[in-house]
C-alpha cells in the first residue's frame, strides 16, 4: 500500500487529531521553535537582528544570570532530595494505618498543593517576618534568636526552599502509597521467613519495587523545581544581593520588564538544555526495568 493510500484509509484518525493538533502547532510547538530561533536574535518589541551566538556569549558574562544558574542548581539539589525523602518516609509510616487516619495525613500534605503557590507564598511571607512572624516566635521558644529569613544572603534561598518543599510533598506521598499498595504481600512474607529485619526488608524488597514510582517522582519533581518562580517574585525579587535569583525569574524580568526578548529566549534555551540533560541522566541512571 502506498503512503497516500494508508493515510486515506486512516483519514478518521487525522480528523480526530485536528482539534488537538492545530492549537498544539500554533500555541505550543510553534512558539517553542520560535523561541529557539529568537535566542539567536537581538529582539525587542519592534525590531529583530540576527546576532548568532551573541546572546549566549553575553550570558556567560552576565553576573545576575550566573548567580541565577548557581542558585537554581542549589535549589534543586536541596529541595528535590529533601522532598522525596520526606514524602517516602511519610508514605512508609502512614501506609499501615487505617483508611480514615491515612486520609487525614494525605489531606494534610495535599491541602498545600491545592492552595497553590500564590496563596502559600503570601502566608509564608507573613510567617517569615523577622519582627512579628510566627517562625521567629516559635524558634524563640527554644532559645533561638531573631533570624532575618528573607533579608540575609545566607538564609534567603533556604527560606524559599522551605516554602517550596511545603507544597511538593502531597503528590509524591499519594504516588508512594499507591506504589506500596502494588507490592505483592507474598514478597514481604518471604522476606520475613528469610529472617530479614524491617530495615533489610525496606532496602531489599520495598525500595527496589518502588523504583518506577521513585524515578517518576524524581524526574517530574526535578523538572518542576527547576522552574521555581512564584516564591521569588512574591518574596524576594531575586535579592538580597542576587542570592535568590533563579533562571525563570531572570527570564521573567528580562522579557517582561525590560522587553529584551532575544536575550530572555537565550536564557530559556539554557534552562531547556539543563532540564533536558538532567532528565536524561536520571533516566539513564535509574531507568532499568523492574522485574517481579
Amino acid at each position, binding site marked *: 500500500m502506498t503512503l497516500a493510500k*494508508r*493515510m486515506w484509509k*486512516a483519514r478518521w*484518525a487525522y480528523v*480526530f*487529531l485536528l*482539534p*488537538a*493538533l492545530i*492549537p*498544539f502547532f500554533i500555541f505550543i*510547538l*510553534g*512558539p517553542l521553535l520560535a*523561541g*529557539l530561533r*529568537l535566542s539567536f536574535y537581538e529582539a525587542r518589541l519592534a525590531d529583530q537582528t540576527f546576532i548568532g551566538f551573541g546572546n549566549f556569549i553575553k550570558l556567560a558574562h552576565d553576573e545576575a544570570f550566573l548567580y541565577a544558574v548557581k542558585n537554581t542548581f542549589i535549589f534543586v539539589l536541596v529541595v528535590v532530595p529533601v522532598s522525596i525523602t520526606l514524602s517516602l*518516609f511519610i508514605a*512508609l*509510616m502512614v501506609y*499501615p494505618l487505617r483508611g480514615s487516619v491515612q486520609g*487525614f495525613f494525605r489531606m*494534610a*500534605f495535599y*491541602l*498545600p498543593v*491545592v*492552595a*497553590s503557590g*500564590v*496563596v502559600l507564598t*503570601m*502566608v*509564608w*511571607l*507573613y*510567617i517569615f517576618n523577622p*519582627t*512579628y512572624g*510566627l517562625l521567629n*516566635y516559635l524558634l524563640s521558644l527554644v532559645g533561638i534568636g531573631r533570624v532575618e529569613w528573607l533579608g540575609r544572603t545566607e538564609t534567603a534561598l533556604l527560606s524559599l526552599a522551605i516554602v517550596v518543599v511545603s507544597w511538593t*510533598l502531597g503528590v509524591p506521598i*499519594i*504516588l508512594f502509597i*499507591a506504589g506500596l499498595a502494588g507490592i505483592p504481600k507474598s514478597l514481604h512474607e518471604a522476606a520475613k521467613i528469610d529472617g530479614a*529485619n524491617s530495615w533489610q526488608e525496606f532496602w531489599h524488597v520495598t525500595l527496589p519495587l518502588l523504583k518506577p*514510582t521513585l524515578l517518576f517522582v524524581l524526574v517530574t519533581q526535578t*523538572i518542576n523545581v527547576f522552574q521555581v518562580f*512564584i516564591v521569588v517574585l*512574591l518574596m524576594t525579587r531575586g535579592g538580597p544581593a542576587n542570592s535568590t535569583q533563579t533562571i525563570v525569574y531572570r*527570564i*521573567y524580568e528580562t*522579557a*517582561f520588564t525590560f522587553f529584551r*526578548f532575544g536575550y*530572555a529566549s537565550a536564557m*530559556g*534555551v539554557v*534552562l*531547556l538544555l539543563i532540564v533536558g540533560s538532567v532528565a536524561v541522566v536520571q533516566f539513564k541512571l535509574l531507568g532499568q526495568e523492574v522485574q517481579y
Partner: protein
Amino acid sequence: MTTASYPKSRKAKKWFRRTPWMIGLFFALILALASLLPLYWMIIGSFKIQTNAMSVPPEFWPSMPTIENWQKLLFGKSPTWRWLLNSVVVASVAAAFAVLTSALAGYVFGKKEFPGRTLLFWLIIITMMLPKQISLIPLFILMRKLHGFNTYWGMIVPWVAYPFGIFLFKQYMQSIPNELLEAARIDGASELRSFFSIILPLSKPAVGALSIFAFVAAWNDFLWQLILVTERNMFTLPVGVSKLVSNLSNYDLGLAMAGATFAFIPMLIVFLAFQDYFVKGITLGAVKG
C-alpha cells in the same frame, strides 16, 4: 532486631518491634501539623486587625476578631468578585476544551494505526516534559499581534491542546477491549458514534480526573495570566490577590490573608468535591509513565 535485651512477654515483644514505627509516625504527625499550620495561620490572620496581626507574641486565636478585612476585600475598592468570575470562566472553558481535544487525540493514539503516529506522539510527549518559559515569549509576541492582551481567549488558548491530557487518555483508552469497537463497527456505527457512545462513556474516570486537573492547572497558570493581563478588571483571582503584597515592606496583613484565604476557598471546594478524582488522576498519570 539484634539487641541485647529481649522483652519477656509476647505483648511486650510486639510493642518492642513496633516502637521505631511509632516514633516515625509521631514525626510524620508533626510534619502533618506543620504542613497545615500555614493554612490555619492564614485563616486566623484574615480575622485580625493590623495591630493584632503584628503583635508579639503572635495570637493563636484573634483576641479581637474582626470582619473588617473581609469587608474591605469583598466590598471595597478591589474588584474581587470580578477576579473570581474571570478565574472561573478561564479555568472552566480551558478545561472543557482541553478534555475534548485530548480525549479525541488520546483515542486515536491509543487505538488507531496511521502514518506519522509515533512521530506526532513523541513530539507531544517531549513538549509536555519541557519547561514552558521558552515558548512564553513568542506566545506573548503573537498575542500582541492578535490583540489577545486582557482577553479571556488569550488566557485560555494555551490550554486548548493539553499534552498531558493526550498522554493520559492514550494510556487509559488503550486498555478498552478492541472487541467492543469491532462490534460497533459491525453494527454499522460511524467513527464519531463509536467514539461518543462507546469510548467516551467507558473513559468516565479519565474524563473526570482530567477535567479536574486541567481546571486546576489553568486556574494556577499564574505567569501567563500575569504577563498577558494589565487591566485590573481582567486579573484572575490569583494574580489580583498577589497584588495585595506587591509592596513587600508595607502592606495590609489582614487584607492579604483574607485575599489568600479567598483565593484558596474555590480550590478547596473543588478538592473536597472531587477528592477521588485527584488521587485517580495523579496515579493514572504515573502508571508506567
